[in-house]
C-alpha cells in the first residue's frame, strides 16, 4: 500500500473500500477479546472456518474476529451480519448449526439467542438485550464491528475521518477550543478538564510530548485493555489529533506488559497507520510529523500515576514526584507533556466527528459524555458498560447489570478501583458523575465498579483493599508507606475480633493524615475504602469489636460452623472434604463439628446437600 499523500486520497480510499464490500454479504464476527478468548472464542472461530470449508462456503461467508463487546458474562459472543443476529455462549460444536442457518435463509439458531431472564423470551439483536439497551456506546460501539488488526475495517466504519477533517479545516487552537467546549474531562480518574490541560501545555515552549496512559492496574477493571484490544486505531487517531493540536512530534503509549493482546494490536495499528501515511513524516501530505512509541510497563500499580509513569518511561524507578511542576509544565525529559488516559484519547475523534456541542449534550452539568465502567462482583451481567454520565446506580445495577445473583440483597458498590470508596445500598439513586461520587466519599477513578451483596463483610473488604495498597504503595513518602501498613494491621486486628473502639479513632486519624499529607494521589486516596466503610458501615465495625461478631459471617476468627441435627442425613460428604478431621459421626448418623479442630474453611458448607451445615457468629465463638 503506497502512503496516502492527501486528505482526498484518504477519502477516495474509503469510498473504494466501501464500494468493494457488499453490504448484503454474510459475515460472522466472533468476539476475540481477552474474556471471550478465555471462554473459547478461538475454538469457535476454528469451528466456523471448518464448517464453512466443509460446505464450500468459505468464499461466500466471511469470518472475522473482533474486539470486546462488553458482555463478558455471556462469552463467547458472536454476531451474524448483515442481520445483526446476536448469539451468546457459543461453542465450537454450534458452528455447524450457525453455518447451516446462515446458508438457509438466516433463521436464527434458537438456543444460542440471548434469553431474557425475566420474561424468558429469546432476543435476536444485540440492542434488544437489556444489558445493551440502556447503554450509549460511543467509544465501544465499533468494537464488535471491526477487526482490530485491519486498518481497512476501521477506515470502512469512518475511521480517520476526524483526522482528515482536522488536518484540512481546523487550526490547533480550534481543536483545543472544541475539546474545551465539549466538556471532556480526564477519564483516568481525577477528571481534570482535558481542554484546559492542553491549553496549559500549549503555553509552554516546544518540544512537547504526548503520552497515552494505558497502565490500568485496578483489580477488576479492564476498560482500557478492551479498547486497546478492540479498537486501537481510535486511540491512535485521538493521539494524532492531539499531537496536531499541541505541535508534538513524539508520542508514547504506556501499556502494562500484562496486556499482551493489547500491545500486539496496538503495535499492528501503529505499523499500519505508518504504512498508510497516517503516522510518520508528512502525515497525509500536510508536513506534520509524528511517531508513536509503544512502551511496556513492568507491573507497578503506582505507575498509573502520571509523574511515576513519566519516571518509568524515562527509565528511572517508577516513583511519583511532587507537583507542581505539573507534567504540562515539566514532564517527560523536563519538557511540557500532555498525559491522558486511553479513553480520553479515544473520545477525541468522537468529539471532532460529532461536534463538541453534541458531546456536551450528553451527561450532567459538570460531567459530560459517556463513561465506561467495568461492572464486576456479585452481579448477574458482568462486563463492560458504557453509559452517559449522570445515570443512577440503580439503573446501572438493576437495568443493565440484571441485579444480584441468587436473589440476594445489594449491600455496597465499590467504585473507582482499590482507592475508591464503598457506596452503601441506600445511596442507590445517586447519579454517577465526578462531583457526586466525590461527595459520597468515593471517586470516579478509572471506572471499576465492584458490586457486593449481603454476604460481603465490609471490614474484610477494607482489609483486602488495604493489603493491595500496602503492597502497591511505592514506599517513597512516609504517610502512605506507614499509613497503609498500620491500617492493614489495625483492620486485621478488628477482623480477628481483637480490635478496640479506639482503633476506629486511630483509623480515622490515619485516614485523614494520608489524605492530607501524602505525596501522590495513591496515598491521598488510599484511605477511601476504610473511611467510607467507617462512615456507612460503622455498626459492622462495632459488631466486630463489641460483640466479636461478623454479621456477614466472613471473618474466620469470629464465626463457627454447626450442623443442624434435624436436617443432617448422615451422607458423610462433609466428613470427606474436611481437611482438619473436625467432623465427627458415622455414616448414616447425625454428624457434629468439633469446633476446637475446625479451621472454618467452609468446605462442608459448600458440599452439604440438605443444607444442614450452617455458619454462625456471636458469643459462642471460643477465644483461641
Amino acid at each position, binding site marked *: 500500500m503506497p502512503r496516502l499523500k492527501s486528505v482526498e486520497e484518504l477519502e477516495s480510499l474509503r469510498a473504494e473500500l466501501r464500494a468493494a464490500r457488499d453490504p448484503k454479504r454474510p459475515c460472522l464476527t466472533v468476539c476475540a477479546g481477552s474474556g471471550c478468548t478465555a471462554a473459547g472464542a478461538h475454538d469457535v472461530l476454528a469451528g466456523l472456518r471448518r464448517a464453512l470449508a466443509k460446505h464450500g462456503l468459505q468464499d461466500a461467508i466471511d469470518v472475522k474476529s473482533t474486539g470486546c463487546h462488553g458482555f463478558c458474562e455471556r462469552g463467547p459472543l458472536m454476531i451474524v451480519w448483515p442481520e445483526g443476529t446476536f448469539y451468546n455462549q457459543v461453542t465450537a460444536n454450534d458452528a455447524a448449526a450457525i453455518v447451516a442457518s446462515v446458508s438457509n435463509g438466516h433463521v436464527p439458531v434458537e438456543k444460542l439467542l440471548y434469553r431474557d431472564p425475566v420474561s424468558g423470551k429469546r432476543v435476536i439483536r444485540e440492542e434488544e438485550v437489556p444489558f445493551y439497551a440502556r447503554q450509549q456506546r460511543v467509544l465501544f460501539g465499533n468494537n464488535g464491528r471491526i477487526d482490530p488488526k485491519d486498518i481497512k475495517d476501521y477506515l470502512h466504519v469512518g475511521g480517520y475521518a476526524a483526522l482528515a477533517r482536522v488536518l484540512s479545516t481546523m487550526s490547533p487552537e480550534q481543536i483545543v477550543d472544541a475539546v474545551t467546549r465539549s466538556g471532556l474531562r480526564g477519564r483516568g480518574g481525577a477528571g481534570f478538564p482535558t481542554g484546559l490541560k492542553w491549553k496549559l501545555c500549549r503555553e509552554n515552549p516546544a518540544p512537547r510530548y504526548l503520552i497515552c496512559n494505558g497502565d490500568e492496574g485496578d483489580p477488576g477493571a479492564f476498560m482500557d485493555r478492551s479498547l486497546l484490544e478492540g479498537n486501537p486505531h481510535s486511540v491512535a487517531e485521538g493521539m494524532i489529533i492531539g499531537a496536531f493540536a499541541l505541535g508534538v512530534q513524539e508520542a508514547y503509549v504506556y501499556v502494562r506488559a500484562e496486556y499482551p493482546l493489547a500491545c500486539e494490536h496496538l503495535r499492528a495499528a501503529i505499523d499500519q497507520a505508518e504504512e498508510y501515511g497516517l503516522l510518520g513524516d508528512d502525515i497525509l501530505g500536510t508536513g506534520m510529523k509524528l511517531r508513536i512509541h509503544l512502551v511496556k510497563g513492568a507491573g507497578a500499580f503506582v505507575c498509573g500515576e502520571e509523574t511515576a509513569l513519566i519516571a518509568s518511561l524515562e527509565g528511572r524507578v517508577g516513583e511519583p514526584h511532587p507537583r*507542581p511542576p505539573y507534567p504540562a509544565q515539566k514532564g517527560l525529559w523536563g519538557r511540557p507533556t500532555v498525559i491522558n488516559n486511553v479513553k480520553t484519547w479515544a473520545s477525541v475523534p468522537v468529539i471532532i466527528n460529532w461536534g463538541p456541542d453534541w458531546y456536551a449534550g450528553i451527561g450532567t452539568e459538570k460531567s459530560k459524555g459517556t463513561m465506561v465502567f467495568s461492572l464486576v462482583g456479585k452481579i448477574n451481567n458482568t462486563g463492560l458498560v458504557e453509559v452517559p454520565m449522570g445515570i443512577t446506580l440503580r439503573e446501572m445495577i438493576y437495568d443493565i447489570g440484571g441485579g444480584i445473583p441468587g436473589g440476594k440483597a445489594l449491600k455496597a458498590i465499590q467504585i473507582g478501583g482499590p482507592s475508591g470508596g464503598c457506596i452503601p445500598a441506600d445511596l442507590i439513586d445517586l447519579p454517577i458523575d465526578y462531583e457526586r461520587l466525590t461527595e459520597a466519599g468515593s471517586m470516579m477513578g478509572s471506572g471499576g465498579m465492584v458490586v457486593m451483596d449481603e454476604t460481603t463483610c465490609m471490614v474484610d473488604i477494607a482489609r483486602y483493599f488495604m493489603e493491595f495498597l500496602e503492597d502497591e504503595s511505592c514506599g*517513597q513518602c512516609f504517610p502512605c508507606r506507614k499509613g497503609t*501498613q498500620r491500617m492493614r494491621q489495625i483492620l486485621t486486628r478488628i477482623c480477628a475480633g481483637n480490635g478496640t473502639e479506639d482503633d476506629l479513632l486511630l483509623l480515622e486519624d490515619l485516614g485523614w*493524615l494520608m489524605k492530607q499529607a501524602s*505525596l501522590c494521589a495513591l496515598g491521598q486516596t488510599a484511605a477511601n475504602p476504610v473511611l467510607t466503610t467507617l462512615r456507612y458501615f460503622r455498626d459492622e465495625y462495632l459488631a466486630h469489636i463489641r460483640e466479636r461478631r461478623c454479621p456477614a459471617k466472613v471473618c474466620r476468627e469470629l464465626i463457627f460452623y454447626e450442623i443442624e441435627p434435624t436436617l443432617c442425613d448422615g451422607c458423610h460428604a462433609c466428613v470427606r472434604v474436611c481437611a482438619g478431621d473436625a467432623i465427627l459421626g458415622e455414616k448414616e448418623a447425625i454428624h457434629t463439628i468439633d469446633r476446637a479442630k475446625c479451621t472454618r474453611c467452609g468446605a462442608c458448607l459448600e458440599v452439604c446437600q440438605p443444607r444442614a451445615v450452617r455458619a454462625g457468629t456471636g458469643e459462642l465463638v471460643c477465644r483461641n
Partner: protein
Amino acid sequence: MPKLTINGIEVLVEKGVTVLEAARFLGIPIPTLCHDDGLAPASACRLCVVEVRRGLEGRSKLLAACSLPAEDEMVVHTNSARVQRARQLLIELYVATCPSSKRIQDLASAYGVHECRYEAEHEDCIQCGLCVRMCEQQMMAGAIGFAGRGANRRVSRPFDMTDKRCRQCGACLYICPVCELRCAGPAAEATLCNGCLNFAPVCFQSYDDAMCFLDPCHACELAGPLRPDVKIKTRARATVLSGEKQ
C-alpha cells in the same frame, strides 16, 4: 520575583526559591527530617507540609514546603490547626517506627505529641533517603540506593555487596537523622520519651559541673523549669531556657 505571604508576612523572593527556604529566611521554623540544604529535596518525610492557598479564593492544600517553588499570590500558613494536626499524627507514626532516635523523640516533645497509640516497631530506618542522596549528590559515589517497593523498600547496596565506588567516607552515617540514640534515662524505656518528668533529669545531675556531651533532650528541657531544685549550668541549656529562668 515572586511575592508570597507566609503567616501574614509578605516576602519577595528570587525565582526558584522554595517555600521552606523563604520561611527559614524569615525565621519561621518548619520541621524536616529528609531535608538538607546541600541536597535535592525529596519531599518524602512530609513533616514540612504547610497549608497553601493560591490567591484569596480557592481551597487550600497541604503541600511539602521543601519542594514547593514560591509563586506569586501564594498564601502560606506554616502553623495552622490543619498543619499542626498533620505534624502531630506524622510524628506519632515516626515515634512508633523508630522510638530509639533522639531526633524523633525531640520532635515529639517539641510538637506536643503526648501519646503513641501504635505498637513500637523498632524499624529504625525511616527511609528519608538522605544517605542515598548524600552519597550520590555530594560524594559523587552512588554506592547505595533504594531497593524494593512499598513495605519491602530499603536502603541497600547493589546486590548487597559493597560497591567499589564506596570509599567508606561515612557521609551516610554523618547525615542520618535517626542514628543518634535517645537518652537512656532512669525510667524504663517507653515508646515515647517521658522526659524523665517524674525524676530528676538525668544529664542535669550526673554532669553537674561538666559539659553534657549530648545535646539536651527537648523533653528534659521542657521538664527543667518545672523542677526549681535542678541547677542548669551549661551554656546551651541556659540560652534555651533564658526566657523562663530568672
